[in-house]
């Protein structure tokens, strides 16, 4: 109840306050206001009241005033006003209302005063509280401020620090990676360097490592790029390696190759490497050959517009000029040799190292290594043949590209020598017989040789036509082998002896096969030594007009002087003039008889033999040509000096010689062009030489000079000497020609060489026939009477006459002997023939006797004995030829008829005329018997025909 009361009161209070007519309430209290209580006092001052009254008044306050706060008191009061206004009432009401207001105000004032201390105290507390709150706020603000400071100055920094540290750590890591990456990137450079240093192994290893490393950094974007770059580099390395491998072809280097091989092994590509290597070799051969030939062709063609770069190799080979042919060939051979040597050494390397490699590896690796090794070995062995084929093909094409027939012999021989070396190298390389090269050699050689030989034959004809048939003074010990052109034989003999021994010593070992590859393994080139050898050994020194002074040079000058005298005979004839006719003076022994021409033939033979040694494939063709030289010389000597005698006297030429001469004429001698006749076919003339004509300065008709006996001697004996020298060569020639051609050689020796001496007869007999006048002797004999009755003691004068002629001949012979040495054989031939002719004259003369007595027959014997005994002093020949021919003819006279009959049948060496004369002169046979014998002889004659 109390609470509602208060509430009500309070409501009143409030309502009261809200009265607009009420004086405005002080909003801001102050202690003084409260203490003075001014407002209440004022009201009280108006009308003091007693409490009851006041109570009443108070209670009289209508309820409506308390109802609503928004109560409009004015309106309320106005409404109460009746329709008819009553001032009093209103006044009363007003007074009541004023009283009421007074009471209420008093009451409120009392209440306020009553509650004022509490209020003040409360206000005080509020003030205090407010103060405290203000303080707290300040503290709080300070705290906050300080906290902010603290936060700013402490937490953020350290946290930042931490964060930074963490970041740093990360960055360090990144830096490391980046460094690695950078290194990786730099590796590229290093790899290139390594490639330059040819450290392929290192490069590959490095590259592989790099790739591994790169894969770790895969998460970097740049790495993928690097990776592909590395891949490129790796491929590049392989390419470089391939290039390095190809270098092997041109110049094998152990270290280099080892590097490359190790690199390939590292790559696991040893087999591929082998395949590649072979391709490289093939192209190396091609490129090398092409470049060399191209170089020379361009060099020669000068600044010509033609572009040779695009030409085919074979086409290119046809543009090589003659001058550059040999140097280019040498370069070509050298270069190809280089390639082959590289191959050879590659093989050797594999032989050694693969074995090691197999031995080094074990287990399953071993199987693979062994397999690899087999593969490589096989590949290499097959390669040998292929490579040689390629090389051979290149050289062959090159050689056949040029016509070499214009070459000088020495130049051509050099070419042959080069190619032969190549063939030998091929043989050593893969046991090849090099058919291709041999073929081209043969082809070129034959072509060349045919031309060369033709020129030599023409030259020989010129020599013969200019030949004065004077003795060419050479030293007495002259031998063909001393000529420059034969020097090579000495070396040949030496070397063949040496190699014979060598072969015997190690015939089973293949050491002689590795001649080139071992000798030139490290340095030098088999095609370089050519020049040196040429100079040192004079093997090919016979350069056209090259001299052979060595035939002179090895005898002192003093001896040379002697020998000149010996040959010219000047000193000798003065020293021993009395013994002119004696055997020891009229002929000389062992003097080589040489003419300018035969000397030239020797030289040509020497060159031909050189050709045969160098040019085995056509050795036989050369041999036949060599035979032609001698054939032609022989034929010419016959034509110049022997032909006329053989016409008059058939028997001078023996059958075999005749056949030989016939053969030569048919095969070699071009028919002399008949004036007006169509010119000979070129083809026909090609292998033939026209018949030579003797130099007009050669005098064969002067009897004083014994019908050119000196020249005849020089001619015939130079031929004989030529033959003798050739006999010395026979064993050498036999070696040089193929075994199946030996028969030709034998035929040559028996048909030409041996015929040389046979030619003496026709050459000399025309001299002897002319220089003694047998006809004159015969006429003398015809004047002799043989039917004498007495035994005569004095020989007939025709014998002296004959002997005089002989003596005369002897004198002239010795005169000739002063100009040229007369060999014993010639001396014998001459005298034998003289005597033979004399003996025939005897028989002819005796047969001419119409009548003959026993005493006459004895006279014949006496004459003949006289002749024989004087002859013995004049000349030195034993036995006297055909002595029996005369003696038997004389003695047959004495035979009884029966024996004579047999004798006639047995002695066919006498002519019909001789026999008939004999029968007619025999006087101890009756007419009938004589007739019978004549009949017999005539029958024999028919039979003889």
């Amino acid at each position: 109840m109390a609470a509602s009361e208060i509430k009500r009161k309070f409501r009143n209070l409030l309502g009261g306050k809200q009265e607009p007519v009420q004086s405005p309430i002080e909003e801001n209290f102050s202690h003084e206001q409260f203490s003075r209580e001014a407002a209440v006092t004022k009201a009280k001052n108006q009308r003091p009241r007693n409490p009851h009254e006041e109570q009443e008044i108070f209670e009289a306050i209508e309820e409506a005033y308390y109802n609503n706060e928004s109560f409009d008191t004015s309106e309320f009061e106005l409404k109460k006003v009746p329709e008819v206004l009553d001032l009093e009432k209103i006044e009363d009401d007003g007074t009541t209302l004023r009283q009421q207001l007074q009471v209420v105000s008093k009451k409120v004032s009392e209440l306020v005063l009553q509650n004022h201390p509490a209020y003040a105290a409360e206000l005080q507390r509020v003030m205090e509280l407010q103060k405290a709150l203000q303080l707290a706020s300040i503290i709080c603000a300070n705290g906050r401020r300080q906290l902010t400071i603290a936060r700013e100055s402490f937490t953020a920094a350290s946290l930042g620090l931490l964060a930074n540290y963490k970041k740093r750590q990360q960055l360090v890591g990144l830096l490391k990676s980046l460094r690695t990456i950078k290194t990786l990137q730099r590796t590229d450079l290093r790899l290139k360097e390594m490639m330059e240093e040819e450290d392929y192994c290192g490069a590959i290893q490095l590259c592989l490592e790099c790739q591994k490393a790169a894969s770790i950094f895969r998460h970097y974007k740049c790495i993928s790029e690097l990776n592909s770059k590395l891949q490129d580099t790796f491929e590049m390395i392989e390419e470089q390696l391939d290039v390095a491998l190809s270098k092997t072809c041109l110049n094998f280097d152990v270290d280099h190759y080892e590097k490359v091989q190790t690199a390939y092994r590292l790559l696991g590509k040893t087999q591929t490497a082998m395949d590649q290597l072979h391709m490289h070799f093939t192209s190396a051969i091609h490129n090398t050959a092409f470049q060399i030939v191209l170089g020379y062709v361009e060099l020669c063609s000068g600044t010509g517009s033609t572009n040779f770069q695009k030409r085919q190799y074979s086409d290119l080979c046809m543009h090589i000029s003659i001058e550059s042919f040999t140097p280019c060939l040498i370069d070509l051979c050298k270069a190809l040799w280089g390639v082959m040597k590289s191959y050879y050494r590659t093989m050797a390397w594999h032989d050694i190292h693969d074995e090691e490699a197999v031995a080094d590896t074990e287990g399953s690796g071993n199987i693979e290594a062994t397999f690899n090794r087999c593969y490589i070995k096989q590949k290499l062995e097959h390669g040998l043949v292929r490579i040689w084929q390629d090389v051979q093909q290149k050289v062959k094409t090159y050689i056949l590209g040029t016509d070499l027939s214009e070459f000088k012999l020495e130049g051509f021989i050099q070419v042959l020598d080069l190619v032969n070396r190549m063939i030998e190298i091929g043989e050593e390389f893969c046991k090849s017989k090099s058919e291709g090269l041999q073929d081209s050699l043969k082809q070129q050689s034959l072509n060349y040789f045919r031309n060369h030989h033709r020129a030599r034959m023409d030259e020989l004809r010129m020599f013969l036509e200019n030949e004065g048939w004077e003795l060419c003074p050479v030293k007495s010990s002259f031998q063909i082998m001393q000529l420059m052109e034969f020097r090579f034989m000495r070396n040949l003999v030496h070397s063949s002896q040496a190699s014979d021994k060598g072969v015997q010593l190690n015939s089973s070992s293949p050491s002689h096969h590795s001649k080139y590859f071992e000798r030139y393994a490290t340095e030098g080139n088999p095609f370089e030594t050519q020049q040196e050898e040429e100079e040192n050994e004079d093997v090919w020194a016979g350069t056209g007009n090259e001299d052979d002074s060595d035939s002179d040079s090895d005898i002192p000058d003093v001896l040379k002087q002697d020998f000149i005298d010996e040959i010219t005979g000047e000193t000798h004839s003065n020293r021993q003039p009395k013994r002119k006719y004696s055997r020891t003076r009229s002929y000389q022994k062992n003097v080589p008889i040489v003419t300018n021409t035969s000397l030239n033939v020797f030289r040509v033979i020497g060159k031909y033999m050189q050709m045969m040694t160098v040019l085995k494939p056509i050795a036989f063709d050369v041999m036949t040509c060599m035979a032609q030289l001698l054939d032609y010389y022989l034929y010419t000597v016959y034509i110049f000096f022997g032909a006329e005698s053989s016409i008059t006297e058939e028997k001078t030429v023996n059958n075999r010689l005749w056949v030989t001469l016939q053969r030569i004429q048919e095969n070699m001698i071009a028919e002399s062009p008949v004036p007006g006749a169509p010119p000979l076919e070129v083809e026909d003339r090609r292998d033939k030489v026209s018949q030579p004509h003797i130099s007009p300065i050669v005098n064969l008709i002067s009897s004083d000079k014994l019908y050119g006996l000196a020249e005849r001697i020089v001619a015939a004996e130079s031929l004989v000497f030529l033959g003798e020298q050739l006999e010395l060569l026979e064993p050498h020639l036999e070696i040089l020609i193929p075994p199946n051609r030996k028969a030709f050689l034998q035929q040559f020796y028996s048909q030409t060489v041996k015929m040389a001496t046979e030619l003496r007869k026709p050459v000399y007999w025309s001299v002897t026939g002319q220089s003694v006048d047998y006809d004159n002797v015969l006429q003398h004999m015809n004047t002799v009477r043989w039917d004498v009755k007495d035994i005569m003691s004095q020989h007939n004068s025709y014998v002296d006459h004959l002997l005089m002629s002989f003596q005369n001949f002897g004198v002239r012979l010795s005169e000739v002997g002063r100009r040229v040495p007369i060999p014993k054989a010639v001396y014998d031939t001459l005298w034998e023939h003289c005597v033979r002719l004399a003996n025939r004259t005897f028989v002819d003369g005796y047969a001419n006797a119409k009548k003959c007595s026993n005493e006459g027959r004895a006279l014949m014997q006496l004459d003949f004995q006289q002749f024989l005994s004087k002859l013995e002093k004049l000349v030195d020949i034993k036995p006297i030829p055909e002595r029996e021919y005369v003696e038997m003819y004389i003695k047959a006279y004495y035979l009884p008829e029966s024996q004579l009959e047999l004798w006639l049948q047995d002695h066919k060496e006498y002519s019909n005329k001789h026999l008939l004369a004999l029968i007619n002169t025999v006087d101890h046979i009756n007419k009938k018997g004589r007739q019978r014998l004549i009949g017999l002889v005539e029958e024999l004659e028919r039979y003889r025909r």
Partner: protein
Amino acid sequence: MSETYDFLFKFLVIGSAGAGKSCILHQFIESKFKQDSSHTIGVEFGSKVVSVGGKSVKLQIWDTAGQERFRSVTRSYYRGAAGALLVYDITSRETYNALTNWLTDARTLASPNIVIILVGNKKDLEAEREVTFMEASRFAQENELMFLETSALTGENVEETFLKCARQILTKIESGELDPERMGSGIQYGDASLRRLQRQQQTTKRPDCGC
């Protein structure tokens, strides 16, 4: 090998031993100096086709031995020579003094029309010269010889010598002073001119050709 040429001349190289005859010939044919040349034995032969005044001429050259003992063997080669090189050594008066003998030989043994060129060889050895150019020129003039100094070593004037001699012969042929068809002239028509000649003869001489 079809060697075609218009003329063929026979040449002779004569002079004392050691004058350098073989070296000159070698230089002419091989175009290089013959290093270790030694005395020639008898004769040697060489040939070369040269081109002179638009004509190709084949020279057949006989290189004779200069040593006295070979005189008799070399004489037969003089006959019918169209031209001769008479060689002496400018560093050896002896070889120069022998020239008269050689010249007589050449004029008597070879054809009287022989064209001779005097050759003073070893021109390169100026320091050792014993025969002056003037002196030799005078000798050449007096004997109606052409004259050149050569060096077989350097090749100087070697080819010129042969060409000069050949040119002179050609001139003489053209002027009619030399008749190639005369026997022993040392001159022959080559294949090329022979064919030309035959054609001419066939066209011009046919009516009265009875030979």
